[in-house]
């Protein structure tokens, strides 16, 4: 085993170590939790996109839909936190079941367009429904307790999220390497052949979509609990686009790509103010200052550059240049 084969493993442990000590190194725990929510969301998205080759443009509906229901259960119904999160996941699964059943019948760009259109139904529902608070969003979601442990402290919440994230990541990794995951990838590579071998391709795709929906729901539910509010942004199509971007930047179909992408883009958004001031300072062009309140434009630019020049993403590029043979997915 050369270091090249081991690199993803070392990187995984390094990331985990960093995540454990980060709150003591002066990182703002809420930023860390945001990162992990989006990283988990990206991992969930990647489970579908990376291994079935079907790019969903509707994952925001799963993410935000779960967030809203978790928020509703904790705020209005007074449910305990774990039950609220479970309800969020269940919501995402229910939306995912309908969306998936309709979408897996179509391929490629059609799949993307169908998921996008169905997610729009969820968006308009959330816009009009009473419980979501419309444009104001759902405010004051209590964090509550987890098995007697109060989640009020950011640091406690941070480690709970870390445990949830690591466990989910490990589980997602197991799914990809399981016989089920292998069959899903076989369907992506050659669907008629997989069918002729006796596998019901659409069922496998739907199964993967549901798993992806469940984890996206978990990410959305956790975000609602952590942040204490839920807004329309989370169900908007721009969030679906955002999760595609995170995964694409990190590397589609890799274990660590979605995490790296989420960390990178979240940090970039957080530091946009500093960056835009710096650009304004060195170029003297005042326009750069406006970048700060226009993060989506910067994301758009990264998107375009990524698709044109950097389609494999960070991890994908690393694997292609230095990694093991493509047969073993890194």
């Amino acid at each position, binding site marked *: 085993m050369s270091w090249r084969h081991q690199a993803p493993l070392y990187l995984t442990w390094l990331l985990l170590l960093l995540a454990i000590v980060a709150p003591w190194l002066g990182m703002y725990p809420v930023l860390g939790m945001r990162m992990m929510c989006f990283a988990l969301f990206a991992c969930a998205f990647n489970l579908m996109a990376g291994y079935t080759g079907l790019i969903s443009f509707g994952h925001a509906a799963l993410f935000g839909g779960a967030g809203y229901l978790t928020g509703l259960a904790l705020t209005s119904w007074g449910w305990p936190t774990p039950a609220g999160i479970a309800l969020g996941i269940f919501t995402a699964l229910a939306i995912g079941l309908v969306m998936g059943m309709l979408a897996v019948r179509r391929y490629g760009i059609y799949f993307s*367009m169908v998921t996008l259109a169905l997610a729009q139904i969820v968006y308009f529902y959330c816009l009009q429904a009473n419980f979501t608070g419309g444009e104001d969003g759902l405010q004051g979601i209590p964090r509550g307790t987890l098995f007697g442990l109060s989640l009020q402290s950011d640091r406690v919440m941070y480690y709970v999220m870390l445990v949830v994230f690591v466990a989910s990541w490990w589980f997602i990794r197991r799914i990809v390497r399981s016989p089920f995951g292998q069959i899903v990838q076989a369907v992506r590579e050659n669907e008629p052949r997989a069918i002729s071998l006796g596998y019901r391709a659409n069922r496998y795709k739907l199964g993967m979509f549901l798993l992806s929906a469940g984890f996206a729901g978990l990410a959305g539910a956790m975000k609602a609990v952590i942040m204490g509010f839920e807004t329309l942004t989370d169900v908007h199509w721009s969030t679906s686009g955002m999760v595609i971007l995170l995964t694409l930047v990190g590397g589609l179909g890799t274990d660590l790509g979605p995490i790296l992408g989420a960390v990178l883009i979240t940090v970039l958004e957080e530091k946009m103010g500093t960056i835009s001031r710096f650009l304004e300072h060195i170029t003297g062009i005042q326009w750069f200052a406006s970048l700060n309140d226009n993060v989506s434009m910067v994301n758009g630019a990264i998107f375009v550059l990524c698709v044109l020049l950097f389609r494999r993403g960070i991890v994908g590029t690393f694997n292609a240049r230095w990694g093991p043979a493509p047969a073993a997915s890194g």
Partner: protein
Amino acid sequence: MAEIFGIPVPLLLGQLMLGLMNGAFYAMLSLGLAVIFGLMDEVNFAHGAFFMMGAMFAWMGGQYFHLGFWWMLLLAPLAVGLFGLLVERLMLRRLRGMDPIYGLLLTFGLTLLIEGLFRTFFGVAGSPYNPPALLGGTLNLGFMYLPTYYVFAMAASLAACFGTWFLIERTKLGSYLRAGTENPALVQAFGINFPLLVMLTFAFGSALAGLAGVLAAPIIQVSPLMGSNLIIVVFAIVVIGGMGSVMGAIVSGLALGVIEGLTKVFYAPISSTVVFILMALVLTVRPAGLFGKEK
């Protein structure tokens, strides 16, 4: 007062007219998408942004250069078409032969970029854009007063749709295009410059979106975000109609505009989602869309 299903007839006819007008816009937009898709297998997410650019250009032309509506009706689509041409030549062409999803992702990013750029300069608030004086009045249709401009916009959209249909189905250039849709390699072997054809088609589709934008400018507020929700509705219409035929795009665009208008009368809460619900229904019955062929 006469009623149908408990709804006053004037209200019903009024929404029918507005629905027909929206439908004409949907038809023009989905037509542009369909033409591009047919030849390139590419879905242009930026179509909504191109629509917005058409309207913004019309507004900017009036604001900064004192060019009236009629001038901008000509110039704005040309400018948007030129922009589309550059996008195809400089970006999309590099993705030829790859999974079409990359084209969708690229144009998605482009949408965020274009909308963001316009936002940094013009903010998100809408600006009104007045129709030309010639079309300023209202028409009395007996059951409602309809602004003259609405009638003009509807007629112009339908004319553009019919013109496009004629161009594609009845001219020599259109026959190249249809042949290219069937088999690009063979068309190229016959000495037709296929890359040029693709570039011009993309420019044409973009110009059509720009034209829709100019025509819509006096009806809805001109703002950098005016195209972003619209494009998703148009996507759903395209899925319903199927990408198969030019006529399919026109017919389903018009039909869904009318259905959306009628939904506003009968059950308003779902008027913004009815198109998506119909899409889900159509998909369960005919996955390839109403007029589409399974590829």
